[in-house]
């Protein structure tokens, strides 16, 4: 934890009765940082967001927002937070302008500043055309953007966004990402998403969570580097399979070999080698194979964020459920 940590979670757990939803979660979000929160459904993302927002209290551990303990100073802390829940919290009978005015007033925006503040968030979220419309008439995309607009009111220090681009069309997704990116330049943003590309595009760091446990938190590039420790080399070779396997396994740094016949060419094998993440392993494989057989193709597979995510969430399938 550093002085610029705006969101701090220290060994946070949440239980509903005997069911543990979040286990000993610890991480920080710094000012000027956008952190992506990745995890499958039921991983504990929304519960964690709710604890940070002060909607529900942690069973144990501590949630701090800009120095406020959200267990005891949640009202003070709420002044510093803009929160977009998974389902945009909208009053259908109000019009867009009345809704934004209500939220702005509660957030302490002064009466004189209200019109300017509403105009600012309406412009940022492209809501100018519907300011006078009743909320129940809005499309899903507008509802989502209105939810984001209320979170931006009052320029909070912290923005918590639960699936902020859900229900948006590609153009709107792009615009929303720009809004989040601009806001994240000098604020702390934590956003949960299922869209892995979104995390890569706009997040400085990504936290992967499953069964309520934090599995990894690092920059997308850092996660890729870490995953390369067990990455793969793929090759296509014309060879005798048992000898090929023996040769490959004798190469230093190769842990496992999986051979499949290449359906297109008889005698050609597609081989997947699990290798150590160090320089030169693929070169050693090439030397060992090329002298004996015809090597048609050799590539080192770079792990995508999607592969990394799947590896993390599949590696520990039941730890959390058993707890």
């Amino acid at each position: 934890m550093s002085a610029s940590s705006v969101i701090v979670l220290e060994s946070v757990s949440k239980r509903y009765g005997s069911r543990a939803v979040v286990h000993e979660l610890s991480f920080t979000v710094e000012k000027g940082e956008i952190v992506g929160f990745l995890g499958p459904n039921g991983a504990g993302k929304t519960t964690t967001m709710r604890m940070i927002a002060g909607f529900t209290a942690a069973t144990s551990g501590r949630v701090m927002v800009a120095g406020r303990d959200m267990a005891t100073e949640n009202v003070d802390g709420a002044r510093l937070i803009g929160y977009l829940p998974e389902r945009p919290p909208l009053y259908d009978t109000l019009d867009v302008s009345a809704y934004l005015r209500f939220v702005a007033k509660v957030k302490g925006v002064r009466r004189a500043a209200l019109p300017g503040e509403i105009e600012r968030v309406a412009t940022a979220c492209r809501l100018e055309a519907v300011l006078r419309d009743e909320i129940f008439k809005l499309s899903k995309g507008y509802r989502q953007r209105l939810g984001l607009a209320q979170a931006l009111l009052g320029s909070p220090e912290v923005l918590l966004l639960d699936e902020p681009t859900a229900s948006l069309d590609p153009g709107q997704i792009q615009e929303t990402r720009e809004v989040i990116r601009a806001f994240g330049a000098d604020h702390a943003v934590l956003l949960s998403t299922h869209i892995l590309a979104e995390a890569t595009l706009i997040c400085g760091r990504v936290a992967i969570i499953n069964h309520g446990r934090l599995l990894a938190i690092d920059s997308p590039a850092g996660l890729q580097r870490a995953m390369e420790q067990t990455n793969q080399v793929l090759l296509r070779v014309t060879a005798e399979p048992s000898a090929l396997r023996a040769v490959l396994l004798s190469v230093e740094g190769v842990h496992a070999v999986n051979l499949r016949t290449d359906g297109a060419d008889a005698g050609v094998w597609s081989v997947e080698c699990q290798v150590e993440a160090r320089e030169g392993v693929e070169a050693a494989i090439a030397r060992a194979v090329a002298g004996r057989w015809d090597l048609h193709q050799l590539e080192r597979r770079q792990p995508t964020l999607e592969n990394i995510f799947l590896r993390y969430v599949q590696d520990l399938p039941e730890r959390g459920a058993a707890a």
Partner: protein
Amino acid sequence: MSGTRAVFQKEIATYFRSPIAYYVVAVFLLGSGYFFLYNIFLGGETAMAGTFQNMGVLLLTLAPVISMRLMATEYSAGTAELLLTLPLTPWQIVLGKFLGAATILLLIIAGTLVDLIPLYFFGTPETTTILAGYLGFLLLGLACLAVGLLFSTVTHNQIVAALLTAAVLLGFWFVGHLQTFQTSAVVRGLVGYLSFSLHFTDFIQGLVRTEGVVFYVVVAAIALTLSAGYLQWRR
């Protein structure tokens, strides 16, 4: 205070952008108007006592309709997640909502003032008795709405909230009748003290007793405190 005011203003806007407020006010005024005309022209009454009594029963059935949506719809619409994560204390939320519902009650009272025109035009009613009756009606209404807010706070379903509120209010209204079956003076005193109708009867007869005022205020205060406490606890 600004938080309470913002919640109150939102409540008022929400009430009047949905049919509920219009429905409740219209039904109440139609009902009380009917009873007033019946009591005056068919009953030969030249006071408001009978009408107040009917207004009290009408209020018991309509207060749950006013209060049922106060918190229950916030849960079902997902807006509780906004309300409870904005910089608002549970008391600011509860008071803002209670005052919003109380405004509907005041509108109902204002609507019934029309009844006084023919009463004063054709007769000589006792003004202090009428004022006491209105005070009793206001206090009864506030207590009913506070109880309704409590049940709306502890359930996510507004129909369930309305039914629970109606059941409890009817219980409070009729509990005084148990006096007839009690031999113990203590129990008779207790059920009499808990009776919404017996205290209300005092008011409409022109008796403004501290005991009655305190009773309704305490019922409302307990219900509001439990509502605020529940919002704090559910975190």
